[in-house]
């Protein structure tokens, strides 16, 4: 078996290399990286005699994509990943996987199509890969491993979800009334039939009517559904979402004005299941934006209302699956409790992330976003959002403020509504530009953020008060040549009490779990970064991660203490990344 695998691999590389040399219609692209982690665990909470103090891990991998373009209308890519975990030798520990396969092209000169792996998104309320609050604001140190996690999971900057299926795009042009009508359609399979379950498909599309460069209106449709007949199952999930969008742009002197609206309805049902509810609701989201080109200032303000029963699988699936456990130090302490997910894990553990959209509402962790865990499409929220951004036209600084002032649409267990206030201020100073240090890059940036969840009430048991604070400080400074010093300090704190809704399999609230926490976690680290080229970097970093729950001592003997024992992990990392 190993011989066959190696033969295929060698043949693959030979074809790729020969092709590279012989013809530009076949070429190789991809990426490579080598990563080494050295973790040093420590705790003062107990005389932990069980957990390994030091762990080393790492891997080297290369993604080889063969691009075949037999003519100017077809492109085929097949990419394989060869990975050797740290310590692997002569095939032991080596894995050989197909990373992606797709065929795309143009049919009839106007119809674009793609088969196989596709990256797709529609709108905030239909189909979008939302980045959670914890990963929204990157730092110079934490972004390095996080980018690799995102690369592995096909989380793109354009917020698409990786799907396996087919997509077509085409546009029709008109002489009157509207300039163009754009059509985008896709279908994918998110679950294969088996174990008494049907194939689950996700299909949808959009139509955009471009009246002029100023006005666009359109409609979007997305539906997660069971394909009846692919198993003996008699219950069929259906979750269609229909939205309408309108966007108006206008430039008045040096001011760009934009007004945008998205509104729609959703329905989630389980046909054939008499006990299942039919959840129907609507939303609307209005935003106004003004950008002054000469000053670099832009302001966006909006209001939205998302109903409590609004369900949109493609928009509400979270990236992080909080029901999973981290791979590094999964169990720790003398009781070998499962260690809670931390931000350190989220920056480097791809196994915590979701690769496929799911129906209903996933479990979320109030520490990392209690206000909008499912993005803008989080159900049962209404309120205002504001974004202010000031980017110096000479690139010397960038400052910004964002805020969301939301409330429940309907109360949970009481008529009193919760208030969710989220906001952050951000500043980045490019000192080299401020002081004309032409040969050196010296950037410092920082963000302070907060999120408060509050509910008052006539009864004490109605009161909720949960506060999250986060801070991030970053430094990037050129030492000499292409060698840079990078440093980051990030802290995340949550304190207070909340009643977290427990939902049944139909995503209805059936109970509440009492959530009480007073914790903080922080990462402090620094490293050296050498850029061979724009796409090739070598980084050596050291960081110390600390996690502490102030309530741990008080709840040592309770179930609530599971996974909350304080600890530190010091980590050195060697990161080589390359794209070609």
């Amino acid at each position, binding site marked *: 078996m190993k011989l066959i695998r190696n033969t295929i691999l060698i043949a693959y590389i030979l074809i790729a290399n020969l092709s590279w040399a012989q013809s530009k219609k076949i070429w190789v692209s991809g990426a490579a990286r080598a990563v080494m982690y050295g973790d040093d665990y420590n705790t003062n909470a107990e005389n932990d005699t069980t957990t390994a103090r030091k762990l080393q891990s790492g891997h080297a991998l290369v993604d080889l994509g063969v691009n075949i373009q037999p003519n100017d209308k077809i492109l085929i890519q097949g990419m394989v990943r060869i990975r050797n975990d740290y310590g692997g030798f002569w095939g032991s520990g080596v894995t050989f996987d197909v990373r992606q396969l797709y065929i795309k092209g143009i049919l009839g000169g106007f119809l674009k199509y793609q088969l196989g792996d596709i990256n797709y998104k529609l709108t905030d309320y239909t189909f979008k890969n939302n980045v959670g609050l914890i990963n929204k604001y990157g730092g110079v140190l934490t972004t390095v491993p996080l980018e690799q996690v995102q690369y592995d999971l096909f989380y793109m900057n354009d917020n698409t979800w990786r799907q396996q299926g087919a997509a077509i795009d085409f546009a029709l042009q008109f002489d009157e009334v509207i300039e163009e009508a754009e059509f985008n359609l896709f279908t994918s399979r998110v679950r294969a039939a088996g174990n008494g379950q049907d194939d689950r498909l996700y299909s949808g599309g959009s139509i955009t009517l471009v009246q002029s460069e100023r006005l666009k209106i359109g409609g979007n449709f997305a539906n997660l559904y069971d394909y009846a007949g692919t198993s003996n199952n008699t219950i069929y999930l259906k979750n269609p979402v229909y939205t309408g969008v309108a966007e108006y742009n206008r430039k008045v002197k040096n001011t760009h004005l934009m007004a945008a609206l998205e509104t729609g309805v959703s329905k989630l049902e389980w046909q054939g299941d008499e006990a299942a509810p039919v959840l129907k609701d609507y939303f609307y989201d209005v935003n106004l934006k003004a950008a002054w080109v000469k000053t670099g200032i832009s302001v966006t303000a909006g209001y939205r209302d998302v109903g409590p029963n609004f369900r949109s699988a493609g928009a509400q699936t979270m990236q992080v699956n909080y029901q999973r456990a981290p791979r590094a130090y999964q169990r720790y302490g003398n009781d070998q409790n499962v260690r809670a997910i931390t931000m350190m894990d989220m920056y480097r553990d791809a196994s915590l992330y979701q690769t496929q959209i799911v129906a209903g509402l996933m479990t979320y962790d109030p520490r990392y976003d209690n206000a909008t865990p499912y993005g803008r499409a989080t159900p049962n929220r209404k309120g205002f959002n504001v974004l202010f951004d000031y980017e110096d036209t000479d690139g010397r600084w960038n400052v910004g403020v964002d805020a969301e002032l939301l409330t429940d649409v309907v109360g949970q267990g009481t008529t009193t509504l919760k208030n969710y206030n989220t906001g952050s201020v951000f500043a980045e100073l490019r000192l080299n530009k401020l002081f004309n240090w032409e040969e050196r890059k010296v950037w410092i940036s920082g963000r302070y953020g907060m999120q408060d969840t509050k509910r008052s009430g006539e009864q004490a048991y*109605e009161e909720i008060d949960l506060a999250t604070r986060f801070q991030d400080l970053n430094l990037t400074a050129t030492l000499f040549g292409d060698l840079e010093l990078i440093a980051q300090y990030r802290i995340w704190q949550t304190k207070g009490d909340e009643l977290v809704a427990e939902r049944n399999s139909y995503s209805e609230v*059936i109970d*509440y779990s009492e959530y009480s926490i007073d914790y903080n976690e922080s990462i402090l680290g620094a490293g050296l970064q050498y850029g061979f080229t724009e796409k090739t970097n070598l980084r050596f970093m050291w960081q110390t991660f600390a996690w502490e729950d102030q309530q741990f001592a008080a709840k040592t003997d309770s179930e609530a203490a599971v996974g909350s024992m304080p600890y530190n992990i010091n980590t050195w990392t060697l990161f080589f990344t390359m794209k070609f």
Partner: protein
Amino acid sequence: MIVMMKKIIILFTISLLIISCERKTETLGPNLSDIYGGFQVFEDFEASRNNVDFYNSESVVFTCRFSKQVKWTIHVIGQTSGAKKVLTGFSNFIDETNGGAWDGTTTMLPMFKNEANLAYLTVDAIDTAYSDTLNNLISIDGVRDNGGSLVSDFNNGLNPGFNVFVQSGADMRFDTVTDPKSPEGTAFYEMSGDVAFADDLGNIMMPKSAFTDSISLNTNGEVVYFNVFAKKGPQAVSDIFVFQFIEEDNDIHEYVFQGLTEEWQQFSIAYADLTTTITAGGGFKNPDKLAQIVVLPIGIKLPFEGFIDYMVFTENGPLIP
């Protein structure tokens, strides 16, 4: 600029139209007050009447109001018969709309008789153990009409025309037993003994002409139900009764039940579900062709103590005692 403003106004008009859409405004999930709120009784436990005539379709409505939703249970105990009715619910009030009405039916045999009844309420919540008993007993002036066609209730002994055959075993007791705790009325019938040489202890043959009610059964066996109350005594080793339904064409269908306990139980079966054992007339189940019923207590050569009462045919469902 004016055109732009018009378009913005259109966008906001659309938004306002959507805002005006209707949406259910009920709170999500269980009420917090039901989980975390303190328990208080806002209105005491009461009954709508102290005397009730169930025969004339009267009922008793129990009422009470609490500060939170709780699991409540009302117990009504017949002071003579020991009959018991249990009403339950999960709510913050009790009335006729949510299970607080009693129509004279029973939950645990025996059935209620013309007697005085004690009623009390219990509440079961996480932090609450509450109970309240009505000061006055509720007197039943007329028992409920159960409907159906009566084969026999043994209140006046064996019906004239019933024929009893008793094997010559030891301590054979085939007789009417008078007891105020009888599941219905004041008497039931005992079939006990120890027969070492045969499976059955004997039998009672009950010709249709000797049934208490003059019966004309529906031709559809799916809707005709046969019901009987039965129990066993402490000395019984076996716990089987066989009821044979012999039709005019000599087809014989059987209802065999076992699993008797020392508490009265109701056994009911649709005529169509009887097991045909002899197909002399073609084996069709024709309730209207019923000629006689034969009851056989089965000891299987072991001591047996069996009791039966209130054999009745009902239509469209089993008897509701």
